[in-house]
């Protein structure tokens, strides 16, 4: 009997072929992602051709695989890891956490968000660095003054925290309120921006 087992793979050749494939696949995929480090923990950043679509606090979203699977379901399963494609996002966040950046001018893709939610996120994005607002004020700015609960939900589902600064929205009366990356992260960001708590 002739032994016909699959040839043992040449690890270096397979690694080189994989790197070449992923580089080519990044420009043909619908979503590219990278894992970023930050002072508030690991972040998964994902972008489409339109812009940044997701900035997820990894450990508050069930881990990397859970984040990717949610993107596969909501956006497209054609997702490829491409750290170089998220260099601008990584740089901007590094500058922000180092205290050298107050505003983000990154293109953002909010196609994951329904129309009212988008209006809420746009209203939220107008709150300047160092300032805070309330759920009620953001709801009013989004055109529905009585919808502060819906505004709260939309901010809780913010796909791009930090970039859309939902940490600047506090409970009426001054309570910190919740946060997609945990209350400790919210406090960290507000302190970084010089907000008195």
């Amino acid at each position: 009997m002739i032994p016909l087992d699959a040839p043992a793979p040449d690890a270096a050749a397979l690694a080189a072929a994989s790197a070449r494939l992923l580089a080519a696949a990044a420009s043909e995929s619908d979503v590219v992602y990278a894992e970023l480090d930050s002072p508030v923990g690991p972040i998964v950043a994902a972008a489409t051709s339109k812009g940044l679509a997701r900035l997820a606090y990894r450990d508050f979203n069930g881990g990397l695989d859970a984040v990717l699977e949610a993107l596969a379901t909501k956006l497209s399963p054609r997702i490829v890891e491409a750290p170089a494609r998220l260099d601008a996002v990584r740089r901007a966040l590094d500058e922000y956490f180092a205290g050298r950046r107050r505003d983000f001018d990154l293109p953002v893709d909010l196609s994951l968000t329904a129309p009212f939610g988008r209006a809420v996120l746009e209203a939220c994005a107008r709150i300047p660095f160092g300032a805070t607002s309330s759920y009620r004020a953001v709801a009013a700015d989004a055109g529905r003054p009585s919808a502060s609960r819906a505004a709260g939900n939309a901010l809780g589902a913010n796909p791009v925290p930090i970039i859309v600064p939902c940490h600047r929205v506090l409970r009426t009366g001054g309570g910190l309120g919740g946060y997609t990356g945990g209350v400790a992260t919210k406090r960290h960001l507000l302190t970084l921006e010089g907000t008195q708590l």
Partner: protein
Amino acid sequence: MVPFQRFFEQHREPVWRYLVAAVGPLHADDAFQETFLAALRAYDRRRAGTSAGAWVMTIAHNKAMDHHRAAARRAVPVAELPEVVQHDHGSASDAGAWARVRALPPKQRAALTLRYAADLTHAEVARALGCSEEAARRSAHEGLKTLRLELAP
């Protein structure tokens, strides 16, 4: 649906093994690129319920066939087949044995590489080749018989 990145990580090694056997180490990289780029393009149209492994192997098989057809067009007829270097006998991943498999008639070659290098079942091989399971078994059997005759001392 599994994100493409995870699908790729899960299947790259078996696809690589299959392609090294099917088209040889020199051409495996090109066939590998073509296989996974084709898989990426068709990825969101893949029917639920089909085995992802058999699906990507079928694509790899088609790329290997393209390679063999192109090689046949380029080939210059020679009077005698060049001698294939025989490495030590009994080695389970004998590159020499796979070089001989590549020299078999197309059906036998495809049946053997899909069954033993891609590790598909006979039923999956049959689906990839568009033939009956019985025909897939027969091609693999004939291929093994030819190899045995060639390698007999």
